[in-house]
């Protein structure tokens, strides 16, 4: 129903009809899962078991189960938290920011990216809980009346802001995701052949019937949700960065942190989206929906944001040198040439140098290159957080309290296990919910592919409609 410029490539290839879209995308939901799904699901369940075991062990034993010491009080826990929260930024970015910019290629990837966001934030939250050591008092940062004559939280603390930011981000993303799902859940409900499917999808479809009045309101709230989610995404990682930036630790106390963290979050988020989608389009046979053009667009974002974080790394160095503060200067020299030099150079090569391969259009369209690159980006961004946290802390102001940090088996298990948690949820999602937004994809399919005689009429009409507010 929208106007497509003849010079643009079509977003959905293969001459799909509306019916094809419904059939292709509901196929995994309506058929027994494939062998690949069972293998992936079983594997991630096993890894999830590692996570459960290691986290339970930590809760029973306490933080002594980790390699933290009096100098390095934050290490794997917060590294993993920031890593997962960063990944959790691509989903809302894709759906919200790209909606505001009218980037229609978002439509076939936004659903799975939003799902990824929610699962990544769940992983991140699990690290917040476990790093407290006593997760049963995790409600303390929430300002609740309490037995201490109501001793409130300190609203000057970015850790308190973070509690509000992450929980708002999680719940608003969940709402945004669910609103997007309703029309598609209704599609599954109306096709249902089994009683169970009819019941469950009917329950969550909330009586959706495709009425224009509902669609009109739906478009209004989608636009507003996108409008409020855009600053929300930017604020969440800015606030995460303030956990560091408002402290006085050299290497943390810099004003560049908020934009630098946001760019890094987009970078790592798109890295993870690529990892998932390159596999999903193969396994679920969605190549007509997630085309090479989609991969190309995502690769460009990865390159741009990777270069932005690289620029931030270099800027930090320059500012440290220019500031004339010897502690600041030492913190950065120690990062690059101190005992953790390898993590610094892993970060540099994965995040700044490797993405430059995407200057080549061939690389941007090659799923194998993209898959390898997406893993490199994930590794690089994990090391970025490790570098920021551990190398800034381990040599603090007094050389007598300098220490080294080595993770324990428990910590490594929790990190690996969190991938199990993430993929476990993702596999369930791909089995039970449509991984591509059918309603949106149908709206970008050309309406005149079957009757070329009416093409002129269609174009005249579409141009006349151009004055209308699109998201309206």
């Amino acid at each position: 129903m929208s106007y497509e410029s003849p010079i643009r490539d079509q977003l959905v290839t293969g001459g799909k009809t509306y019916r094809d879209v419904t059939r292709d995308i509901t196929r995994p939901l309506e058929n027994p899962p494939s062998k690949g799904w069972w293998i992936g699901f079983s594997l991630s369940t096993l890894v999830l078991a590692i996570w459960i075991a290691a986290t339970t062990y930590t809760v029973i034993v306490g933080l002594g189960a980790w390699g933290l010491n009096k100098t390095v009080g934050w290490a794997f826990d917060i590294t993993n938290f920031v890593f997962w929260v960063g990944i959790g930024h691509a989903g809302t970015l894709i759906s919200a920011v790209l909606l505001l910019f009218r980037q229609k290629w978002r439509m076939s990837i936004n659903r799975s990216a939003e799902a990824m966001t929610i699962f990544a934030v769940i992983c991140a939250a699990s690290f917040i809980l476990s790093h407290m050591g006593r997760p049963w008092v995790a409600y303390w940062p929430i300002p609740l009346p309490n037995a201490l004559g109501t001793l409130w939280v300190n609203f000057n603390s970015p850790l308190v802001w973070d509690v509000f930011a992450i929980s708002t981000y999680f719940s608003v993303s969940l709402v945004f995701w669910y609103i997007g799902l309703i029309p598609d859940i209704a599609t599954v409900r109306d096709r249902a052949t089994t009683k169970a499917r009819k019941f469950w999808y009917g329950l969550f479809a909330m009586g959706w019937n495709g009425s224009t009045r509902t669609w009109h309101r739906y478009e209004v709230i989608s636009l507003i949700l996108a409008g409020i989610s855009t600053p929300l995404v930017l604020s969440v990682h800015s606030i995460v960065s303030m956990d560091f930036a408002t402290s006085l630790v050299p290497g943390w106390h810099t004003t560049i942190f908020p934009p630098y963290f946001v760019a890094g979050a987009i970078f790592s988020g798109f890295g993870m989206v690529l990892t998932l989608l390159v596999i999903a389009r193969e396994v679920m046979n969605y190549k007509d929906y997630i085309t090479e053009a989609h991969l190309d667009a995502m690769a460009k974002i990865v390159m741009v944001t990777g270069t932005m974080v690289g620029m931030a790394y270099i800027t930090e160095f320059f500012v440290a040198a220019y500031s004339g503060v010897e502690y600041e200067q030492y913190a950065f020299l120690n990062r690059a040439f101190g005992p953790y030099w390898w993590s610094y150079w892993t970060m540099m090569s994965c995040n700044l140098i490797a993405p430059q391969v995407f200057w080549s259009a061939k690389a941007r369209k090659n799923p194998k290159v993209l898959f390898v690159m997406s893993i490199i980006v994930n590794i690089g961004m994990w090391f970025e957080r490790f570098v920021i946290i551990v190398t800034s802390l381990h040599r603090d102001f007094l050389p007598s309290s300098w220490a080294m940090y080595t993770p324990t088996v428990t910590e490594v298990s929790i990190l690996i296990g969190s991938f199990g948690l993430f993929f476990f949820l993702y596999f369930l999602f791909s089995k039970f919910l449509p991984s591509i937004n059918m309603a949106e994809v149908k709206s970008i399919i050309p309406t005149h592919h079957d009757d070329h005689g009416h093409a002129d009429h269609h174009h005249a009409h579409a141009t006349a409609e151009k004055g209308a507010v699109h998201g309206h």
Partner: protein
Amino acid sequence: MDTKKMILGVYDNPDKIYAATKKLINSGYSIEDVYSPFAIHGIDRLMGIKRSRLSVAAFLFAMTGLSLAVIFQVYVSKIDWPMIIGGKPNLHIPTYIPITFELSILFTAFGMVASFFIVNRMFWGKNADIIDPRVTDDLFVVAVNIKENKTDVQALNQILIENGAIEVRERIKED
């Protein structure tokens, strides 16, 4: 119990249903609703649907969240239990900004979505009044209200078919 009689025109293309709806409205028929698998841009204006006031509701919810956040933080840190932390003032507006912002967004999102469900009368487990199970798949349906002995059904069918309806049928809806 009142019954409503409607003629349904079923289409397989959004352009055709747009043209048909336009023709019907110009010929003075009363359109009950148009059902489609995705939003057909412009058809809402055609049907004379006024821009939803949900955006106004959203703004009011944002203001509610904002005020509650400011009031609460000021009350806690200035009135109820003032504490000196790092020698900073008790009433320190800039540090209230992040939480105020987050709560405004939270209230907007939840308030607006709840209002959306209320105005559409949507709730979990609602038994959907489905005009045709294929409207969530690949078909588009325009429902035209007719009055017994008053509406010229013949002419109506003519318009629906001329504009490419693949199916025309009658439906009685109990209100």
